């Protein structure tokens, strides 16, 4: 055995720094400088912030973009920490699971605006300082990112193959090592995809999270979102253009520096290369791999994992634990406790809401919910009619797909507010009814999930299936009916579920549109919540949020879930 053979490659990269190392070095340092600068703003005083209004000068956008990007990164980190702890707890503890997962379901349906009620809490944490407001903004971005990530990771944890878990136990990996060696890598591909979706969600609500206005409290944090809000208030079209450009650049940077490397390395976590799929490439990942950086990080990581492991003699069986914890009566006590907490919470909420709101208004709000439901349903149907055929067409042409996908990804992050100038002017000029013509804003960011998924579905159609279709002369409508539509159906359903949930959340920015002093309001639950929050009317805001959550969760349960189950059963060959 030649022990000296392995380290050769290690030695080479370590002692002969190449161009990749240099580039990596420069980028890392630039990142530090940039973070330090952006973070300096955190400790400033609130009075100072109020004294320096947002500037619409294009040059100011560079700093704003940096601040916004930093907030999103911090929120993303927070979401990851949340994901790793919350999802792990839910997956590991049967008792925690019964409450954590339904809770996640509801949290996911709560629109970001409703969370802005918490701003007062954050402001009083650091009186007179910007840090509290920054925390509030980051928290709001977090609420548009965390839930789907946590759910994805939970789902991954539950689907680790039995034998892998048994191998980890057989080789006596401790919980910490098992988490980093098995569970996190296994959940990574799905998690990365969800992080990308979350980032788009964060951008879509960027104005809501930075220009926070609840009752008498108004905070405008320097950032792209506040810039857009001001540009809209001042009817400055040029500034809107600059904001779009700045967003485009930041999204592109995120894509190239963060998500490309991540998706490219996600392929590395998969056991099998799926047929017909070329591994994604990323220059940033290549850079990291070719420089010594990644190897160094990997070694440090391994050392960190081993840090807590005390050398153990062989031949000692590990004791099995928890048999006493499995007792039935603890289950019952736990469920009883949950029931009590639930009853208490219900009592408290009802008391809080009913102090201000008459029962008749609840009926009215439910009615508003049905109006918004009608909008979502019609829009999803329209988006499906448009995007399913296009998605199939694109999906069957890999070269077109590789162009369309990043474009759609950018469009998914495009905030609805940026279209306010066009929509509001058109509605006012043509004397259209806002109830109909504001609606398309709802689906602006979410329709792309239908397109994404249909493209993926269409590109996954087995070539044999297509050849068989050609061979038997199946074309025209028959081709769509018997081949294309059934093949993409499960993918379409997944996309439509995402789009529907997202549209409900988007209703808070889509049913109320401002352009300068012009304000258009459509009837609907989103407008109700938006106006109540703006007015600082906590009771109505909470009522609206509860009704909206119930709508989303009930529709998921009675409509989407059976459809999804059916699509999975009927259209997948396994």
């Amino acid at each position, binding site marked *: *055995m030649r*022990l000296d053979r*392995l380290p050769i490659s290690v030695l080479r990269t370590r002692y002969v720094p190449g161009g990749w190392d240099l580039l990596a070095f420069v980028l890392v340092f630039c990142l530090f400088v940039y973070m330090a600068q952006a973070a300096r703003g955190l400790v400033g005083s609130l009075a100072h912030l109020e004294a320096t209004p947002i500037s619409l000068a294009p040059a100011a956008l560079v700093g704003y973009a940096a601040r916004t990007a930093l907030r999103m990164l911090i929120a993303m980190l927070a979401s990851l920490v949340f994901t790793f702890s919350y999802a792990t707890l839910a997956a590991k503890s049967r008792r925690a699971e019964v409450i954590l997962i339904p809770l996640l379901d509801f949290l996911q349906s709560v629109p970001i605006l409703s969370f802005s009620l918490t701003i007062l809490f954050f402001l009083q944490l650091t009186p007179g300082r910007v840090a509290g407001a920054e925390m509030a903004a980051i928290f709001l971005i977090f609420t548009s990112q965390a839930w789907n990530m946590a759910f994805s990771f939970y789902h991954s944890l539950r689907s680790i*193959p039995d*034998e*892998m878990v*048994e*191998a980890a*136990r*057989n*080789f*006596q*990996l*401790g919980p910490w*090592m098992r988490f980093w*060696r*098995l569970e996190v*890598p296994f959940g*990574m591909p799905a998690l990365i995809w969800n992080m990308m979706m979350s980032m788009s969600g964060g951008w879509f609500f960027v104005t809501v999270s930075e220009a926070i206005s609840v009752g008498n409290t108004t905070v405008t944090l320097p950032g792209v979102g506040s810039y857009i809000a001001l540009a809209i208030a001042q009817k400055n079209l040029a500034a809107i253009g600059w904001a779009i450009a700045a967003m485009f650049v930041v999204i592109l940077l995120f894509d190239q520096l963060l998500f490309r490397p991540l998706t490219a390395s996600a392929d*590395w*976590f*998969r*056991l*099998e*290369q799926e047929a017909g799929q070329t591994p994604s490439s990323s220059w940033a990942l290549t850079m990291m791999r070719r420089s010594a950086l990644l190897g160094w990080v990997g070694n440090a990581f*391994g050392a960190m*994992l*081993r840090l807590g*492991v*005390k*050398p*153990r003699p*062989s*031949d*000692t*069986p*590990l*004791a*099995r634990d928890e048999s006493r914890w499995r007792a039935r009566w603890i289950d019952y006590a736990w469920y009883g406790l949950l029931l009590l907490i639930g009853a208490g919470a219900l009592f408290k909420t009802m008391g809080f809401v009913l102090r201000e709101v008459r029962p008749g208004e609840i009926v009215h709000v439910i009615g508003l919910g049905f109006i918004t439901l009608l909008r979502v349903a019609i829009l999803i149907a329209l988006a499906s009619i448009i995007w399913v055929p296009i998605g199939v067409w694109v999906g069957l042409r890999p070269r077109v797909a590789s162009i369309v996908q990043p474009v759609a990804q950018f469009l998914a992050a495009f905030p609805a507010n940026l279209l306010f100038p066009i929509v509001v002017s058109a509605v006012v000029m043509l004397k259209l009814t806002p109830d109909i013509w504001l609606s398309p804003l709802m689906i602006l960011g979410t329709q792309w999930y239908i397109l994404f998924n249909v493209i993926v579905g269409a590109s996954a159609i087995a070539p044999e299936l297509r050849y068989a279709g050609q061979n038997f002369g199946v074309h025209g409508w028959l081709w769509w009916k018997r081949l294309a539509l059934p093949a993409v159906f499960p993918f379409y359903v997944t996309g439509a579920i995402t789009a529907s949930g997202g549209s409900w959340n988007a209703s808070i920015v889509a049913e109320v549109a401002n352009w300068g002093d012009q304000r258009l309001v459509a009837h609907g639950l989103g407008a109700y919540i938006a106006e109540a929050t703006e007015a600082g009317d906590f009771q109505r805001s909470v009522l609206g949020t509860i009704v909206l959550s119930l709508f989303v969760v009930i529709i998921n349960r009675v409509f989407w879930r059976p459809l999804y189950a*059916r699509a999975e*059963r*009927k259209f997948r060959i396994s």
Partner: protein
Amino acid sequence: MNAVAPALNLAPLLDVQGVCKSFRKPDGDELVVLENVNLTLRPGEIVGLLGRSGSGKSTLLRVIAGLDEPSSGVVNYLGQSVSGPASGIAMVFQSFALFPWLTVLENVQLGLEALGVPEAEMRKRSLQAIDLIGLDGFESAYPRELSGGMRQRVGFARALVVHPNILLMDEPFSALDVLTAETLRTDFLDLWGEGQLPIKSVLLVTHNIEEAVQMCDRMLIFSTHPGRVISEIPVDLPQPRHAHDPRFRALIDRVYVEMTARPRGEPRTGARTERFAGTGIGTQLTHVSSNVLTGLLEAVHEAPYNGRADLPAIAEEQHLEVDDLFPAAEALQMLRFAEVEGGDIRLTEPGQEFARSETDERKRLFARHLITYVPLAAHIRRVLDERASHSAPRSRFIDELEDYMAEDAAEETLRTIISWGRYAECFAYDDNRQAFTLENPA
């Protein structure tokens, strides 16, 4: 030939006493998977646990590995009761269970890393194990870059590197093609014979009879439902063993005889014990395609067998594994198309008639036997006939079956009866509506 000759006077490494394993079903009934299993493993021997799927042999392996808890009974390892994974017991998995994000070297290091072995020693031992198992040069490869055989070599290296006393193997070769499996087996036996492996004993779970005879010093034959040891067969042939050796063939024959023997006291009725009184629908069915049934009937009917065949011979000729052959033979026995005994399969009169007939006549015959001898089929048909709508939901029968068996067994039983019912055109099944009907398109 072996590193350490099996010596009866040595203290056992492993002592399994009266292990039972049962699962509690939602309705409170117990489902017995393992019944009173005793087993001792001494240094220097390879012991095979041989049985069909569902005989609980893999469950036993997991109990021994400390991954699963016995309902009663004890597992003693070096005189200590096993109550969790022990580092002296390492396992090789059927699906390899490698971590795809780790290189070969990192995968092999895994167990040492968990034990807190210092880095230099960890690397040295891992490279030794990689070398030993013939993976030299693949240290930095990822599992997805390797073929199945190479992947399983990593599985072996990962287990050997911790220098376990006992190596547990859970059907380690069954996911590989025949040629690769053979190479890996002989490589393993060579290393074992030369005393190069840092292990004392091996416990091998398999359903491949030839594999067991080739590798083991002793074989324990498991019955199904519930799993228990029905016999122990010592293998005294010297290594290397050759499949064409008459003594080798004789041993294989003997295993077939043991595996097809009826448990004592069981009447000559269906294939499997009908352990429940009442409607008799509680018989668990294993899914066998009507194609396989037809094929087996034809093969036994034709020359050179002419209605009576030696099971090992027909298994080899038809390329059927035990897990394919036995359920098919049992299904034929249950349908009274064949009799299985003493390692032979013999066609009954209707079985021969079936083999001689054309498709339509075969279906008619199959339908008659299905309704007459499989109570579940008769039950479904009766329910459909009685109902005005001639339709009944799947859930109704699943619920009934789950009174007798575990959930997945009930699923499989129903899947089997749907497939047979469709072939026989006794009833139809609509997957969209999840319902049985009498409406045949015909």
